[in-house]
């Protein structure tokens, strides 16, 4: 591959790795606070899956980038402006409905993404995506079940689930943005046009909302910036906590 294509691939890998790291961190925060023990297990399981995928992607990025690039360096020593995760994954665990809404809306996107990337001409990326696809399928099934149960549960759970969907909605269009740098990789079949998947996302989300007796939000405002490292205020705090040990004791091994 050309240097340009290599640089683009590193960006793509970091983008998806960052999504998984930050969502894994958010889910990790919540363990021991779930409504029942079975949910603590499920949340921990999701956190583990996301962190596992992130590690594979960072590892691959580090190999291509060479030099002193590493999994720990990418995850623990980059700044807020260098993280290119989507804004939705950094949103806080406001309540269980928000956790479910975030996992569901993002999960449906991620499942479509991994479906695409499992056909990548880059075998290593295709392999990572194929494994991640199995996990994402489970995450979506699990989150969807809760969207439906909460939406069609009690008046309180319905109101909370609708609020959570409404609040997360403005972070969903960003998931289907395609950064310009990807074009070189689209040509070679390493990655694919994600904008084409939007209709499938809409259909899957609408289907769940309908079953859940929830209303699809009509919020004209859609936030953007995550893929360029322009985040909500939440990410800085998340990273301050996540990176604290590595930042406090530079050079130490753990």
């Amino acid at each position: 591959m050309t240097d340009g294509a290599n640089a683009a691939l590193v960006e793509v890998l970091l983008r998806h790795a960052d999504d998984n790291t930050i969502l894994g961190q958010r889910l990790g925060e919540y363990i021991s606070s779930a409504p029942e023990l079975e949910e603590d297990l499920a949340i921990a399981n999701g956190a583990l899956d996301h962190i596992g995928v992130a590690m594979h992607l960072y590892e691959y990025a580090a190999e291509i980038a060479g030099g002193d690039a590493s999994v720990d360096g990418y995850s623990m020593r980059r700044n807020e402006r260098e993280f290119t995760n989507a804004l939705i994954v950094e949103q806080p665990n406001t309540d269980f409905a928000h956790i479910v809404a975030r996992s569901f809306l993002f999960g449906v996107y991620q499942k479509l993404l991994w479906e695409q990337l499992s056909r990548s001409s880059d075998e290593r990326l295709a392999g990572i995506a194929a494994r991640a696809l199995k996990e994402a399928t489970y995450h979506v099934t699990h989150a969807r079940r809760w969207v439906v149960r909460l939406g069609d549960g009690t008046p309180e759970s319905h109101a909370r689930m609708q609020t959570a969907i409404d609040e997360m909605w403005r972070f969903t269009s960003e998931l289907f943005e395609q950064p310009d740098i990807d074009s070189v990789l689209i040509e070679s079949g390493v990655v694919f046009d994600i904008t084409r998947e939007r209709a499938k996302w809409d259909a899957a989300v609408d289907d769940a909302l309908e079953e859940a007796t929830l209303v699809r939000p009509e919020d004209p405002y859609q936030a953007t910036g995550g893929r360029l490292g322009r985040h909500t205020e939440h990410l800085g705090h998340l990273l301050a906590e996540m990176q604290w040990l590595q930042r406090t004791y530079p050079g130490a091994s753990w």
Partner: protein
Amino acid sequence: MVSEHQTTFDETIAADEKIEPRDWMPDAYRNTLIRQIAQHAHSEVIGMQPEGNWITRAPTLLRKAILIAKVQDEAGHGLYLYSAAETLGVSRDELQEMLHSGRHKYSSIFNYPTLSWADIGVIGWLVDGAAIVNQIMLQGASYGPYARAMVRICKEESFHARQGYAILMTLAKGTDEQRQMLQDAVDRWWWPALMMFGPHDSESTHTEQSMDWKIKRMSNDDLRQLYVDQTVPQGEYLGITFPDPDLHFDEESGHWRFGEIDWDEFWAVVTGDGPMNRERVAHKKKAWEDGAWVREAATAYAVKHAAETAKVA
């Protein structure tokens, strides 16, 4: 007069066979098991908090993943153990209520705070190490479901202890600050770990009866000695010191002899006045109360759905 049931029960115990859920058992045996298994389940669940305290700050993604897997195992152990307790005719909701109201205890070790990353390693090494000594014995417990839960739990616990020790080996080979972090954690956790085996045999109200029933197969003091003998050499290998001036190897007996535990501290923590007792229970209650609307929704949905299914049929 001894009933026929009692005779069968006594013979089963004497023959080292297992008592199963449908077998007759004396009420006192049943109640002792419910208390002990529930306490064990509660300990797993409360134990998720001190370790969960470091999930967000684990120093690398690999360490984070290992720690999450460990906390997840604890949730799983809690579930098996609650299920084992349920075979004795008590519900999980009742047991949770006993925990929340303070009528049930959990292992006091989790009432100490985790103040540095080294604490996560030390919990794996010292706390899980102590739990393993206890649980290996419990694999031979006379109540079948409990003994079988222990077999599975022991396998996972030995992985936990190894990962704890691996964290500590890394710190021991690290910078001066990391070695200080390690020593400080050992200084804070050593005595509470020894307390995990409970009061001296002479002070233990339950030991004798539990040993007769073969729920416990070794006494508190014997288990504690076994633990000290296996742990001290591991500490030496790490290059740490133990916070006990009386600790020494006794050539004659072949045992490591140690100083007297601060029993005032032990009883204070057991009865609720430890550094984190109130926070641990408050966190658990808060999670439970915050989740009430979720559980209600799940029930409401299930009821609606069942009604619809019935109509269709």
